[in-house]
């Protein structure tokens, strides 16, 4: 049989890329089962203890809880604010609309170091003590643009005649919003919220500048890395990964089932 380069090159390349991408994740996952004494760098023996007693090291769980709380609060605020901005930008003509559109891209384009340092300087100027709430404010700031951009794309697909039909059918402004506009924007709003949550949960640079004494999960892992990351951090990292993959799978399955049902 003739050896065909084209037939083998692409699959090999893809396989190698996947392996390269997966190694850190697999490493993290495997070492979450390591029975450690001092540092979680060399493999010793297999155990479930880390998974069962994930809060054995209270700092890990505290940092994780902080991250979740910050992500939830900043997501709620930036999704609500961002949705309102997106509807205003998508639906209404007003003075400064194009300027607002442009300004919204700034936080996405600005290096995080600059944004983080700039905000930290502002807090210092105003004499605000850094901590949990300064992190929340920082996260709202940088997730807001992503929410606006995501929801605005959805607003653009929304036929304004649907809202007109609603008001023609005796719905007042608030009924039109809650019965028609909001349900139709919901997929976009959910996507924006998920993105915002992931960005917030994940953020290190901006958080580092504005956290003060408080800590988040990424910040904890970074600090801990200097003296060996505790295996509990591996557990949480792996669990987050598994949950995220599970959510993606469920969403994909649901939409493909829905597509099949509609095709029938």
């Amino acid at each position, binding site marked *: 049989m003739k050896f065909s380069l084209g037939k083998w090159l692409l699959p090999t390349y893809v396989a190698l890329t996947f392996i390269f991408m997966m190694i850190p994740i697999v490493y993290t996952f495997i070492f979450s089962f390591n029975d450690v004494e001092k540092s979680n760098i060399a493999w010793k023996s297999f155990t479930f203890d880390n998974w069962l007693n994930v809060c054995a090291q209270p700092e890990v769980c505290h940092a994780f809880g902080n991250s979740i709380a910050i992500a939830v609060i900043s997501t709620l605020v930036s999704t609500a604010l961002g949705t309102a901005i997106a509807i205003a930008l998508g639906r209404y003509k007003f003075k400064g609309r194009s300027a607002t559109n442009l300004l919204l891209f700034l936080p996405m384009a600005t290096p995080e170091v600059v944004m983080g340092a700039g905000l930290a300087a502002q807090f210092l100027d105003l004499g605000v003590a850094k901590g949990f709430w300064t992190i929340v404010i920082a996260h709202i700031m940088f997730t807001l643009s992503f929410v606006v951009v995501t929801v605005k794309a959805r607003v653009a697909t929304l*036929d304004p*005649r*649907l809202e*007109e*039909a*609603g*008001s*023609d*059918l*005796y*719905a*007042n402004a608030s*009924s039109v919003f809650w*019965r*028609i506009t909001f*349900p*139709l924007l919901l997929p976009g709003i959910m996507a924006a919220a998920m993105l915002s949550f992931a960005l917030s949960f994940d953020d290190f640079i901006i958080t580092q500048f504005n956290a003060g004494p408080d800590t988040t999960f990424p910040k904890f892992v970074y600090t801990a890395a200097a003296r060996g990351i505790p295996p509990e951090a591996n557990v949480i990292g792996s669990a987050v990964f598994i949950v995220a993959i599970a959510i993606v799978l469920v969403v994909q399955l649901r939409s493909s089932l829905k597509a099949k049902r*509609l095709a029938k």
Partner: protein
Amino acid sequence: MAEQFVARGQDLELVGIRKEFPGFTAIENLDLKIPAGEFFALLGPSGCGKTTTLRIIAGLEEPTVGKVLIGGKDVTDTKPHQRPVNTVFQSYALFPHMSVLENVAFGLRQRKIEEPLPKATKALELVELEHLANRKPQQLSGGQQQRVALARALVNRPALLLLDEPLGALDLKLRRQMQVELKAIQMEVGLTFLHVTHDQEEAMDMADTVAVMNHGQIEQMGAPEALYDRPKTAFVARFLGQSNIFVGDVVENTEHTIAINVNGQRIAAPKLRSEKHEGKIAIGVRPEKATFHETKPQLGSEHNLVGPGEIIDIRFTGVSNQYLIDVPGFGDITVFAQNVGKSPVVELGAQVYVSWKVEHSFGLSDLPAKADNDEI
């Protein structure tokens, strides 16, 4: 306002409506009165302001000047949801996230009417779609969506139902079928219908009264037969069916007849059917009122006769043949001859005379932008 809903239609009155948009004026000065229970069609080409008129009545646009009265009540300053008016949108605008039944029940729920679902089901029965009540709108065909949109509006028993080219997206066969159904439903429920369309056949077929709109103004209004039989402006003559129009100076103005001179030929019209009686005027005739002759016929003064001219085009349109005859000095004259089973009486290139009865002529109030006898 919104609490008062009626079992029968109410009359609509537009008083001195003017609507300006940045850069152009959509409606010049519109006065209109539609009696309760009537099927009224607003007919015009796209961009003539008919959809803007509809949106002003629904409250989706505010007039720059003027008043909207429904059932004698001034509703100009009220919001769309406060008006006893429902619209069937051109794109149907069904709510994609609700079932067909919930779409129909929407207006009832907003008004907190008791038993919205049984009433919505009844409305779906009226348009014969009760078996699809639980589907989503995007699972329906265009014709079915159109009927849902109609049911969603009708279920509220509005004083006035606005139809914004609701049949535009349907194919010809379905459109004819829906026209019949729509007319039947209107007769059954007795509501006032205002139908906006650019399809002149649709307007003439369904409406009790047709208003022809052009450049933000109503050119002529009346029963379809009257409008077709005696158009008063060149625009109406050509938009509502086809017309042959000739322009010339008045040379005869007697008790019963007006006649103009077109290239030495006398074209007459009854005085009662003429808008203007002196100067340069336009006289027209419908293509099916004209006949052609292979030899010069001997006709009295009760007929108009032009020719000879050459047949330059014959089009077979099914029920009739359409002949285009180039008469020197008169331009291209269109003649319809009914297709009664014989092969074409004349060949392309034949020399023929065209005649029609004077009583079928109509004299217009304005001159067409381009008359048939304009020399090119």
